[in-house]
């Protein structure tokens, strides 16, 4: 594949995983929910898309149904999440994701088991690999922009303020009238819906789904994106997604140009792991700091007071 195709491919992946990173950022960065089962909802969206598209359902319904189904499972998962400590929740959801993967792996009638099943793409191949990728970039980034607007608007609103309060001290938040059950359930549903949407886009872009595409590694990769970019910062999540994908896919390009004694794939993971550990040791807040809550009213007050302060010093 020529370099330009690699790059376009990379951009599609950044878009798709950008959506997933935003969803995890909403759950963990803003609300403190340690969702280590992200890939489960990604899988639900992908497989739903695969099966529905085979039945001839129009693509937007496939995407919406996938997202909705993922949201329902997200709601289910949120119920035990209310009472579980962060690490218990992480392990439980991880196990949940593995159970789902086990099901699609074992039930061959469902979607081909281990060998998977083909998926009808939204943009059928018309003879140009480049056009195919450009079309997908268009669709994926449209979805990404919508998702970004949603999480950004939420972050900069009283709703986002409540989420952060729950993250900081959920008992205090409850004592101030915020039902943590309601907010956690909503956040899990929304985050899962986004992951499901991304899963559907992924499935139709690759035109195939199989269980091996939905290993826990995907969840870990998304976690690295959020932690690296900076939790509770939506731009950070996108930055993290871009950097991680460039790192992951960049080696595919580099492979053609560099010869090493060590398998590039292994080297990549080793470097990756070392990088994460170093980041956690020396810059645990990630690249971009937590975004402050910016509402119109707050901005006015800040500017007003700055003006008063300046006036005072004259």
């Amino acid at each position: 594949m020529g370099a330009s195709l690699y790059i376009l491919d990379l951009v599609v992946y950044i878009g798709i995983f950008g959506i997933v990173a935003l969803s995890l950022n909403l759950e963990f960065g803003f609300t403190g929910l340690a969702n280590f089962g992200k890939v489960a909802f990604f899988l639900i969206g992908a497989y739903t898309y695969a099966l529905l598209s085979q039945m001839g359902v129009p693509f937007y319904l496939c995407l919406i149904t996938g997202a909705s189904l993922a949201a329902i499972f997200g709601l289910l998962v949120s119920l035990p999440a209310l009472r579980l400590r962060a690490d218990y929740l992480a392990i439980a959801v991880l196990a949940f994701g593995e159970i789902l993967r086990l099901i699609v792996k074992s039930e061959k009638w469902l979607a081909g088991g281990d060998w998977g099943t083909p998926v009808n793409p939204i943009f059928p191949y018309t003879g140009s690999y480049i056009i195919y990728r450009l079309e997908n970039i268009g669709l994926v980034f449209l979805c990404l922009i919508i998702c970004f607007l949603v999480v950004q608007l939420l972050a900069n609103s009283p709703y986002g303020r409540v989420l952060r309060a729950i993250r900081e001290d959920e008992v205090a938040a409850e004592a101030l009238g915020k039902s943590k059950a309601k907010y956690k359930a909503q956040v899990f549903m929304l985050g899962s819906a986004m992951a499901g949407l991304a899963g559907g886009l992924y499935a139709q872009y690759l035109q195939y789904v199989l269980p091996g595409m939905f290993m826990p590694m995907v969840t870990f990769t998304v976690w690295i994106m959020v932690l690296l970019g900076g939790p509770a910062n939506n731009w950070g999540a996108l930055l993290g997604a871009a950097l991680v994908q460039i790192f992951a896919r960049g080696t595919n390009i580099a492979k053609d140009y560099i010869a090493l004694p060590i398998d590039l794939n292994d080297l990549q993971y080793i470097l990756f792991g070392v990088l994460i550990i170093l980041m956690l040791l020396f810059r645990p807040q990630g690249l971009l700091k937590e975004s402050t809550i910016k509402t119109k009213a707050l901005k006015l007050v800040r500017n007003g007071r700055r003006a008063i302060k300046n006036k005072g010093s004259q």
Partner: protein
Amino acid sequence: MEEELLRIREVSKHFGGVYAVNGVSLDIDHGGICGLVGPNGSGKTTLFNTILGLHKPDQGDIHFKGKCINNLAIHQIYDLGLVNAFQLPRLFFNLSVLDNMLVAARGQQGDRLYNSLFLRGRWQEQEKGLIEEALDILEVVELTQWAFSPAGELSGGQRKLLEVARGLMAKPRLLLLDEPAAGINPVLGKKIFQKLKDFSYNGIAFFIVEHRLEILFDFATWVYVMDKGKVVIAGEPQAIIDDPTFYAVYLGEE
């Protein structure tokens, strides 16, 4: 209209066989400033935690505004107008002081999912008003210049003040204050209590645990004394001071 704002009857709470609160009965009237004193370990904080809904009473009833709140969730009790300021401040340390205040406000349009996304105009106006209110209260506790700083940067005394300020922001009918002036210099402490008195004229009732009796007794209209999980004395401050058993409670004599 109901007689009492808060009505506690024979409430007990035990942890693993140890009764922290053992058959407490008391009333708080609308708009009163009521004190709760007693030696460490007498059950004051546990009583507060049970009232606010953190614990369910093992025995007895708690009625607020005539309604039994034994089995309500914490946020539902807040909705009824009962707000608590914790002894060890439970602030949102990564949020700004102003944001901490804004979380406390009730009836916000913007904290609902649909509204925050699609009806932004509705809550943005409301937020402007809430910010003004918050800044007014912050001025009382002398935290105005910290409004945009993270709550984590406040000193211990300032954190207590923010905890109290947040409680006031919630526009409660009854505010439980667990040692609000602890760690705060006496001049500011007196100022705070004066302001609390002003708020009580607006209809807010206070139930205050406070060890510095000289401050409390200037402002409280009624005082309960707890010892070993029970209320042992109740009365007007002057009557309490004149009661010899009050000192016995603190000095541990029978």
